[in-house]
């Protein structure tokens, strides 16, 4: 993916560009809002990583301007402001995701990768298939190797989200946000417990596990031979 980091703190920007490149993406940096806007217009980027407070033109205005021009490049807002209403404001301005500073790079990477693949038409896909695991979004049925698996409603949504992003690392907070719609820090390992329950339903008794834990980052659903 080609990524644009619009961030005025030089060290942060350099760190992000370097780390994103190491993760196999192309990344450029812009140090202020105006430069960032110009680069975003011309650069044909897959995802924009935009700091909220920027010199010359702040992040939210930048995204609003781009959206006003019809550009639909997904944007991840980085902000030191973390309360609920700041988040709402950020998303209302046209941002696609919101991450509060300080953040773990693995969290940022997972979110950027999830945003980058969002351009695929997801609503029209009625079935997700990973290895021999099949999830049917219309009939709400899950089966593995032809064998039907009974999931509770929340477990179904959890698996659905993980399978939609098959092959991508999904963090705990992403799960809490998208499956439960909570944007707070649950303090305990609630998500882990739910994932391990799901895992026991879809992986137990099968030789190849599909739901993997990525240490220090989150989870990924992936057939091993991929």
């Amino acid at each position, binding site marked *: 993916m080609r990524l644009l980091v619009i961030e005025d703190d030089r060290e942060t920007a350099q760190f992000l560009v370097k780390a994103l490149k190491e993760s196999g993406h192309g990344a450029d940096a812009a140090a202020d809002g105006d430069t960032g806007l110009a680069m975003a217009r011309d650069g044909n980027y897959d995802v924009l990583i935009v700091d909220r407070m920027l010199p010359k033109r702040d992040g939210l205005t930048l995204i609003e301007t781009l959206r006003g021009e019809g550009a639909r490049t997904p944007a991840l807002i980085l902000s030191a402001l973390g*309360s609920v209403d700041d988040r709402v404001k950020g998303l209302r301005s046209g941002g696609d995701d919101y991450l509060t500073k*300080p953040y773990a790079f693995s969290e940022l990477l997972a979110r950027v990768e999830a945003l980058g693949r969002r351009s695929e038409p997801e609503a029209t896909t009625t079935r997700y298939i990973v290895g021999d695991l099949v999830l049917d979004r219309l009939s709400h049925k899950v089966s593995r190797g032809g064998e039907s698996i009974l999931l509770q409603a929340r477990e179904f949504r959890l698996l659905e989200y993980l399978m939609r992003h098959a092959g991508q690392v999904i963090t705990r907070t992403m799960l809490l946000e998208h499956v439960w719609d909570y944007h707070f820090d649950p*303090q305990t390992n609630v998500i882990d417990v739910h994932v391990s329950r799901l895992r026991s339903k879809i992986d137990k008794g099968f030789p190849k596990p599909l739901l993997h834990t990525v240490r220090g980052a989150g989870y990924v659903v992936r057939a091993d031979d991929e």
Partner: protein
Amino acid sequence: MNKELVSSFYLHRMPLRAAFFALSLLIPASAIFAAFIGGEVNRILTAHTVDALRTEVGFFKSEFDRGGIDALSAAVQSRSSISAFTLYQLTRLDQPTQVGNLKGRFDDVGESGLVFDLSDAALKGSEKAAGIAIVVPGGGRLLVARKIDTQRQFADYLRNLTFFCVFALGALALVIGWLASQRLNSRVAEIALTTRSIMGGDFTRRVARDHSGDEFDHLASNLNAMLARIEDLMGALREVSDNIAHDLKTPLTRLRNRAEAALRDDSPAAHREGLERVIEEADGLIQTFNALLLIARLEAGAVDATLAPCDISTLVADLVELYQPVANDANLQIISRIGSTPRGEINRQLVGQAVANMLDNAIKYSPGDSGMDPGPIEVSVSQGDKCLEIAVADRGPGIAPDDRDRATKRFVRLERSRSRPGTGLGLSLVAAVARLHGGELRLEDNEPGLRIVLALGRPRTTSNQKATVGELDRVDSSATVAR
């Protein structure tokens, strides 16, 4: 002149100056009023006198009609001899002398009556009289008059009395007003003095109350409530800074030590492990920091705009579902008793986080690993008279009544919790969320254990749904999971 002096100048001098000003107006005002009263009385009494004289004249007319000018003359003569106050004068053209007890010429007096001076009469001094005169047919003029000095004295007396009374009343009003304003000033000055000493840093000072129930007493009571709140906040601030020093410095020291230890060790594996633990500590610090900032923002009331209608029962049921597996892993069960409630205007994320903290707290402190049956964690949602109550009750060690107030303060971790993970901010966040929603956090005895009640005072009903008692007692069995 500085601001303080100016204000005290106005506070103390203005009413006195106003009093002198009012006094200087009061004298001419009461004089005008008294003159008006005196004049009116005089006018009315004169009119009366003239009326009486007219009756007298009527009598003389009838005498004249009966016996002509001689009979009239005789009547005047006889009346003159018996009356001291009423004066008569008959001037006949056919005789040179005047008949009656009034001498002199008073040609101005006519039939309509006139007040005239008796000074040039034989009678002494400058007395006044009111009189009327008629023309006697056949040549003559009859004047009947009455001295009005007594009447004038009476009117003067009334005028003076009026002046005195009005002036005295006015002065009395001024004195009362001045005294009242002095009292007002002294109360205001007292409050100003108290606030000044509070501004100077003495937060224990309070405005003195007289419990009279008047406006100032009310004001003082409100001010004192405000001061108590300020003192609380200042105390909280002090406590927070003390606790920040402790609870943030400790992990910071640990973080630093770990980094140093890793540096001293030369093996790459040790470096790696050291860095990982540094990140772990940093994450813990970030968590504490975020919680602190959130509480600070909530207490500043800065997130009010994000209230939106939300089904609170569903929210709580969702959270129970989220925490159920965690509880089950700790050998605990959660029983929920969630009545249907009207949708309330709440901040879903914040109330969600508060309830999550309550559940987290209950799970953390339930004696799940001791081998005994710990008893269930009970979650209930019920609609009270004015507020909606979300309660989470555990069977843990509970909190002693004396410690309950302290437990909701920031960073306070009672001894029982020191050894367990957590930021120590969980319940203070719940308390802040409750306050933001116009409610409160209550810690109650669950006998044994702790019952945490989050009362949301403000949930404005957005539908006509009302929970009935029967509905409240409905046990949601689907959420009850056996161990």
